[in-house]
């Protein structure tokens, strides 16, 4: 396959580059790895490491009755809650200046006192490694360094400007929670924790990125998630050796099973309810600090075509909407190609009045249908890209110019047929139906080669293109789970929540592949029943009776 050849070539190119990129990245290097007993030396280390950055604050306070022991409180301005620092650290230490005589205390006692009595914070850690201290300070913690002691304390006083929890932009629902993830890892984990109040909800944290020191967390439900998948995720994350991770998309490229596939094999979402839903199906979530997009793995293809709302809406409607989405997926992928194939190769497929109507519209159009299709698709993609990147106020202007003026004028000028405009517009709208953006981009990209094939070999070309995509999809795996499950391989029990959605009380089991460790989800026979007629005294309406 062309993809395969291309991927091999790319792989080779990349592997060659990797070798010389080893030396990249700059860890703050210091001659020593452990803290010195001398406060001044330590202070010099810090100033040196941070290059005397303007937001570095080093405050010296004294412990105990004058002259006391010098204590350095070090933090980065803007990363910490300054009020908290003064209330919980500086003030208690200051109080000792009237009470304690440090000469009588041993160094160990001073440390103990600081850590266990004076600092009024819940998260206080003792460090002796100088790099640890630097990273903590850089990460927004407050470092406390004692004179004459080779250990320091790090306490969490982080408080920085952040976006509050808002409604997610990219996945909108009508019914369902309005909360979306934000950029701060801790807020995100709390959004999840609030939804799963059980100790079996485990979160493991990793630091990825030698310089950016981005926190990455794997969240899963112990006992439901497959341990092998969790281990696989751990392995894949710890393998990463890069200077910085800024977004989960970047991380995704290191975690994927099929790096050369146009299809994403890891799902990203902004919605906590989607993540918890996935966790209860035995999947794991990977959260990255600094981005509201959380990764979910392992996933199947059809998961990309579901929306959390499917589970909140009545199941008939939800099922119908799902089928609609699948249809839209095929329209978005194949419609222009089918149009090209049918109008240039298989005119016999159309009913006579329709074929004559299309022929009449194409009268005088200077381009062959395939070129017309490519041109229109391309111009639509340009319009879409422009509309996304423009400031919101320009949005309507673009749509007026693009859709109304351009489309109308093109038809009037006889450059394109109006049937083609209809096809392109329908395709565009259908591609917006896909709830997950990363899939809809893949579809949009694949549309073009399939149009080319359709223009070359007609329906055979479309079938060929579609088959190659299908073969490719079914050869994919996401963390060991076949990507096209439950369609290929067919898993009958999983069709309940893919092609359609059965009512909640009928979905007894978790998905076959991801929920292996604990398949059973609920007790049986939970279908609600109406009370017997004699008990039902209040409402006497016959319609409510006797339904079983």
């Amino acid at each position: 396959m062309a993809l395969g050849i291309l991927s091999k070539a790319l792989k080779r190119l990349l592997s060659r580059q990797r070798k010389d990129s080893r030396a990249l990245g700059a860890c703050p290097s210091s001659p020593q790895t452990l803290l010195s007993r001398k406060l001044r030396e330590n202070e010099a280390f810090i100033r040196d490491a941070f290059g005397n950055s303007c937001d570095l604050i080093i405050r010296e306070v004294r412990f105990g009755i004058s002259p006391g022991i010098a204590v350095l409180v070090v933090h980065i301005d803007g990363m910490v809650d300054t009020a908290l620092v003064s209330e919980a650290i500086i003030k208690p230490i200051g109080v000792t200046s009237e009470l304690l005589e440090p000469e009588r205390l041993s160094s160990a006692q001073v440390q103990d006192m600081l850590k266990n009595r004076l600092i009024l914070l819940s998260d206080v850690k003792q460090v002796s490694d100088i790099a640890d201290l630097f990273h903590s300070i850089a990460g927004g913690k407050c470092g406390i360094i004692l004179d004459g002691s080779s250990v320091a304390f790090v306490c969490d006083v982080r408080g920085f400007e952040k976006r509050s929890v808002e409604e997610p932009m990219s996945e909108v629902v009508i019914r369902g929670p309005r909360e979306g993830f934000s950029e701060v890892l801790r807020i995100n984990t709390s959004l999840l924790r609030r939804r799963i109040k059980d100790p079996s909800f485990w979160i493991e944290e990793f630091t990825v990125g030698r310089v950016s020191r981005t926190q990455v967390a794997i969240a899963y439900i112990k006992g439901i998630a497959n341990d092998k998948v969790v281990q696989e995720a751990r392995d894949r994350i710890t393998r990463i050796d890069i200077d910085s991770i800024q977004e989960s998309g970047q991380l995704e490229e290191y975690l994927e099973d099929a790096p050369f596939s146009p299809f994403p094999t890891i799902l990203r979402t902004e919605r906590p309810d989607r993540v918890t839903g996935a966790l209860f199906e035995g999947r794991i979530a990977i959260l990255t600090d600094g981005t509201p997009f959380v990764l979910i793995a392992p996933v199947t293809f059809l998961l990309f075509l579901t929306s959390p709302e499917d589970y909140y809406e009545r199941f008939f409607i939800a099922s119908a909407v799902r089928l609609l989405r699948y249809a839209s997926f095929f329209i978005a992928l194949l419609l222009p190609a089918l149009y090209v194939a049918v109008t240039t190769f298989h005119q016999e497929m159309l009913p006579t009045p329709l074929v004559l109507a299309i022929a009449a519209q194409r009268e005088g159009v200077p381009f062959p249908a395939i070129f017309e299709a490519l041109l229109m698709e391309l111009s639509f993609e340009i319009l879409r890209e422009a509309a996304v990147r423009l400031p919101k106020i320009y949005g309507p202007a673009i749509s007026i110019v693009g859709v109304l003026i351009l489309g109308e004028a093109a038809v009037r000028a006889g450059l394109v047929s109006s049937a083609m405009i209809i096809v392109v517009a329908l395709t565009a709208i259908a591609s917006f139906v896909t709830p997950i953006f990363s899939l809809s981009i893949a579809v949009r990209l694949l549309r073009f080669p399939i149009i080319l094939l359709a223009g070359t070999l007609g329906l055979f070309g479309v079938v060929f293109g579609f088959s190659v995509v299908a073969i490719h999809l079914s050869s994919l795996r996401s963390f060991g789970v076949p990507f096209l499950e439950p369609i290929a391989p067919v898993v009958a029990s999983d069709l309940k929540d893919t092609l359609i959605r059965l009512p909640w009380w009928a979905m007894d089991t978790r998905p076959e592949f991801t929920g292996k460790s604990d398949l059973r989800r609920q007790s049986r026979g939970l279908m609600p029943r109406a009370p017997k007629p004699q008990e039902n005294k209040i409402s006497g309406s016959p319609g409510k009776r006797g339904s079983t």
Partner: protein
Amino acid sequence: MTVLEGGKISGRQFMAVLIVLRIVPVTLVFSLISNINHVQDVWIAVIIGAVITIPFAVLVTKLSLRFPGKTIIEYSQILLGPVVGRLLGLVILWCFLCTSIDITRVLGEGYVIAIMPETPILAFMVMLAFMSSYAARSGLEVTCRLGEDVFYILVFVLLLTYVLPYNAMRFENLRPVLAWGVSNLVPPVISDLGFYSQFLMIGMLVPYLNRPEDATKYAIYAVLIGSGLMALAAVVLVAVFGPTANSWTLPLYSLSRMISLGEFFERIEVAVMAAWTLSTGIKLALFLWAASIAIAQLFNLRAFEHLVYPLGAVIVASGLFFFNSMVDLEDFLAKAGAVSSILVAGVTLTLLYAALGIRTLIRRRKGGSG
């Protein structure tokens, strides 16, 4: 020795690919009906074919079950010794390749005859071989997973083609039954068995089943469903076309052209052709896979993946040069091809069972004396 193919397939997938394997040539050139003089009895020929095939399929399956994890290529070497076993393996491989060549050419001919006469047949054959090689290269698991889906699609499309031309059907065309005697049925039965001898493929698939104990059951199902679908096709074709049924080059394609519902739902034959393309792709992928595995096992290679694309190219080239014309191809499928593949299947089975019998006899002797 390293594992050539690590995939596992389910019983249902096994059955599905076997059925696809059986009905794919039918959906394009229905040799059974083209070879019979009095078409109304062709469905009986299909039933006779099924009755003969079931024991054959069971025997192949049972034999494979005696050698768990070994393909027919491997255990024929065990049973017959490295030289004779290899020779037999080569013959089987030759059969696999011949089938691949046939079906590639048939699909190409189908497109050129029916839909796009101006396009060179090479284009269709190359694309098909490319697509199938890609699937075969991805392994048995991928091929069979898709095979199951394609099977459902194919059955759906076939049933649609059987039912929708209802207003053109006249079932009186099926009478009189058996007026022309059994001799009338011999050519179609031979043709049917010729296709069924491809069930030697069972010997390649059984070792990869995740529950081999079900293999016999699913093999029988495959024969029943495959023959059922074909018998239905035979009945419908005769009902719609009457005595002209054996005049068509592509009977089922012509059948799908008869569909006409309410001025709008008609002319779906190209879509039907699409379903046939998918199923031919799966069948070719399976045979390419089997041929590559066979080569790898015959010559003790460590991987089969590299063989797939070259084999695909060889098949396209041979498909072009093997047959001069469509008449040539049909003649081969009906006569030489069918007879020789029945012979190969029969001889293979007899040889292997004979060797097995002798081996157990010897072993029992030894056990008895020692």
